[in-house]
Structure formats: C-alpha cells, structure tokens
C-alpha cells in the first residue's frame, strides 16, 4: 500500500508554523515513515510546477498556514485545494487572520506609504512602489498584486479542518496527524482542539477567586507578576476566559497572560466582542466616571481583543476612508 501524500505550504505568515512542524522533534520521523511529503517549499526543493503536475486530490492532506493577502497566495490556495483531499488551515493566520490580519486596521495605501516612503529607515527618493508587472529582456513578467484586505483561508477556499494556535501546539499537531492516519477524524469543519476555555486547563485555576473583580488593569511590564496567582486577579488582561484551550497554558507557564492565539471556542461568534465582555465585566467599579477612567488603562482595545482574529471577526476590517461620510484615516 502506498503511503498517503502530504503537503505543507505558507502564505502570509512568519514561518513559526513551519517551525512547529519541526518541533515535533523525534516524532517527525514517525510522520515521515508514515507519509510521503510531496510538497513543502520551505524545507525542501519544490516548485509550483510540481504542484501543477499533480492530479486532482493526489495529496491526502495539505496543511496551509498564513493569511491570504496577495494574488499569488490566493492562486496557491486554490491550487492546493484542488490537489488535496483534505485542506487543513494550520495556525491562527490561516484560521482567523492572525497577526498579519491586524493590517485590516489600516488601508492598503497607508501601509504602502509607511513601508515604502515614511518609515524613518527608508530612503526612497524616487518613490518606488511595488509593481504588478516588470519588463525584462524576455518580455513582461507579472508580479503578485497586494489586495486591499487580509482574508482567512476559509474566506478564500473551502477548508476541511482547523489547527488553531500561534503556532499550533505540538500535541495538537501530533493528535491531528494521528487522527488522519487512523481515519479517526471528527466531522468536517471541526477545529482539532478541545472545545473548552483555557481557564479550564490553567494550572492557576485554583487561585481564581469565586467572584473575580479587579481594581485596575495593568500591563505586564508595570508589575512584578506573581508566578502562582491567577493573572486576571492580578489585573492583567489574560484572554483565558474567551480562548480555546489546547496549549496547556504555555504562556501562563512562562508567567505571561494569554493573548488569545487559539481563538474562540465553538459557541463564540465574535472573539473580540466576547473577550471585551469578559474583561470589562470584572472591573470593580460602579461609578461611571471611574469606569471610563479605569477602562482607559486598556491602551488599545481593538488591537488587544482582535490580535489574532480581525479578518474572521464580524466587522472583518476597519471602515475604509470616505465610506462613512468621508472620514479620513
């Protein structure tokens, strides 16, 4: 019996997800024994033509990380979809938009202006900007177009499963691979991680008071963090109550609050709205002016609550200038 063929690909992402695959350590040898890796451009020499030459559905499963921003990423996502029986959105960026998804707070033009003109380290006296084609001796070559908005993988092509996390925890990856090899996958569309909030598996769960109330919100650099006590109880914005578990509270183990990379549990329709609700509710004040003052200690609500999931959120992105009565951003 031939081994199932597997592919990995990245779109708008940092490479951390590829690193997570390598973090399987010795277990990766079992994976390599069980499957044939037929496409993994980051680690091995594969070209787009290798993919194009495959038959439809030739790959049993393809893991795609990264959000979708350029026309090339969109084309690759479509190509990978047609060549794979199962397409798995791997990591926060492909599942929810991730860190690159925060570009949806800005317009395409303001990003290009910042990166190619205004950044203090940029010298670009000719005002060169990325082009969508370039002329060489052999003729005109097309280049990827930079879309106005970041999309998730499932806003681009049909996705069968999701592996959440930034990057997905090794245990979840190993579990997913085993489930695929043993044909023990849950119904399609499932997120391959537990459907409970992180607080449930938090080692500091016992120190969380029955009625959680905080007098002030603090940022990690402002206090000496008690390594035993519930981080919310210390006034830190820990996203545990709104975030899916599965990471074994890795950040909390490092004495840092959860930032929400595993995204929402199944019952949440908008992660940012739910996280905001959880954080605002624990503020111990009933005075309207004091509430406003204390909530101002949360410096950047949208960036904090939509850190990994802006493109997947209900609002999807900030409103573009001139749409609402011509507000200039």
């Amino acid at each position, binding site marked *: 019996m031939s081994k*199932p063929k597997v592919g990995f690909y990245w779109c708008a992402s940092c490479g951390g997800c590829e690193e997570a695959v390598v973090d399987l350590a010795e277990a990766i040898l079992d994976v390599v024994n069980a499957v044939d890796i037929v496409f993994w451009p980051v680690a091995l020499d594969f070209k787009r033509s290798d993919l194009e030459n495959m038959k439809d559905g030739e790959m049993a499963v393809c893991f795609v990380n990264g959000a979708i921003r350029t026309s090339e990423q969109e084309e690759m996502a479509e190509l990978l979809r047609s060549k794979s029986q199962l397409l798995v959105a791997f990591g926060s960026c492909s599942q929810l938009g991730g860190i690159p998804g925060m570009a949806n707070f800005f317009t395409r033009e303001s990003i290009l202006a910042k990166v190619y003109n205004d950044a203090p380290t940029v010298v670009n006296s000719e005002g060169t900007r990325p082009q969508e084609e370039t002329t060489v001796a052999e003729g005109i070559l097309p280049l990827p177009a930079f879309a106005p908005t970041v999309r998730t993988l499932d806003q681009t092509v049909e996705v069968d499963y999701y592996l959440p996390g930034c990057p997905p925890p090794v245990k979840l990856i190993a579990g997913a691979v085993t489930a695929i090899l043993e044909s023990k996958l849950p119904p399609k569309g499932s997120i391959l991680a537990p459907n409970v909030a992180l607080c449930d598996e938090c080692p500091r769960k016992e120190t969380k008071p029955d009625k959680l109330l905080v007098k002030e919100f603090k940022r990690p650099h402002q206090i000496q963090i008690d390594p035993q006590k519930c981080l919310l109880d210390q006034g830190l914005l820990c996203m545990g109550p709104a975030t899916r578990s599965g990471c074994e509270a890795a950040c909390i183990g490092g004495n840092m609050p959860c930032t929400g990379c595993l995204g929402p549990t199944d019952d949440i329709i908008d992660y940012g*709205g739910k996280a905001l609700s959880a954080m605002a509710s624990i503020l111990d004040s009933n005075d309207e002016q004091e509430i406003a003052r204390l909530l101002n200690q949360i410096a950047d609500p949208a960036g904090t609550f939509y850190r990994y999931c802006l493109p997947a959120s209900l609002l999807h992105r900030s409103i573009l200038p001139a749409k609402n009565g011509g*507000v200039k951003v």
Partner: protein
Amino acid sequence: MFDTHDPETRKTFEPRIVAFFCNWCTYTAADLAGTSRMTYEPNVRVVRLMCSGRLDPQFVLHAFRQGCDGVLIGGCHSGDCHYQEGNHKAFRRYTLLKRLLTQMGIEEERLRLEWISASEGDKVRSVINEMCEQLRRLGPLRLERRPELRHTSVNQPDRVTVEVGGGSQ
C-alpha cells in the same frame, strides 16, 4: 446601495436602529409611551432583554453586520437594577465597546446607552427621535463586505476517511 455623499440619498435615507431594552424599566417605559399614545419615529426595532447586563457586545457587532445603522441600549438608572448591578456591567461593556468601535471607524453616535425608568415614556420618545435625527445626518453605516465562509459544513458523516495515495493510481 446608499451613497452618503449624494444629497438625494441623504434626503431619502431612513436609519435602522436596533434597541435592546431592559424588561424592567426601558421596555416598560416604551410600553407606557405606547399606551399614552405618544408617537415617535418608526425606525427602531426593539429587542427585549431581561436586563441590560444581558447585552453581549457580540449582539451589537452582529446588529451592525446585519445592516443596522445604530444600536440603542436602554437600562435602569444606577441603583435601580432588578438584579442589583446588571446595568453597571452593561455600562462597563458599553464604554469599552464604544472605544473599540471608534478604532474600527464606526462613529460613536451609532452606539448609545440611556438609563430610562419604567415611568419615563417620554424619554423613550425623545431619545429615539433624537438618535434617529443624528443618524439621518450621519448617513448609513457602510461596513466593508465580509467574505463568505467556505468551510465544509459540519453536517457531514461522522467518520472521515482519506484515500491513501489518492489519485495516483
């Protein structure tokens, strides 16, 4: 769709408001406005909640995504909450949500919270009329389109099997 810059659109545009009213005060006040035969703008769709503290910020975001131009929240005055402090919780969420919406480019007039007791039918009328007028001036809320989700429906057979070496024979 509407073009906010077009003066003709501005003339014909009627805002859609979703109002979340607390059962014990503002909803009763709206009832009072009705039985007192007060007339107010018909642009509001009232959703009754048991308490303004039941208002999940997701409801507001969902209402905006579904096409409403403004959201009004009505709750009990401070100290009057039937559940003691649900209205204070609502205020905390509302305050933070408003900042988040502003960051997203949504004008702050589109989300409004008012404390209206069961006897203040007239306040229901004046708040709705006033908000309606503000939204008429502001024009329609034009969110960016959110791409359709393309994930496989969860209503699939329980077992999913992969054809090993599929397609290569």
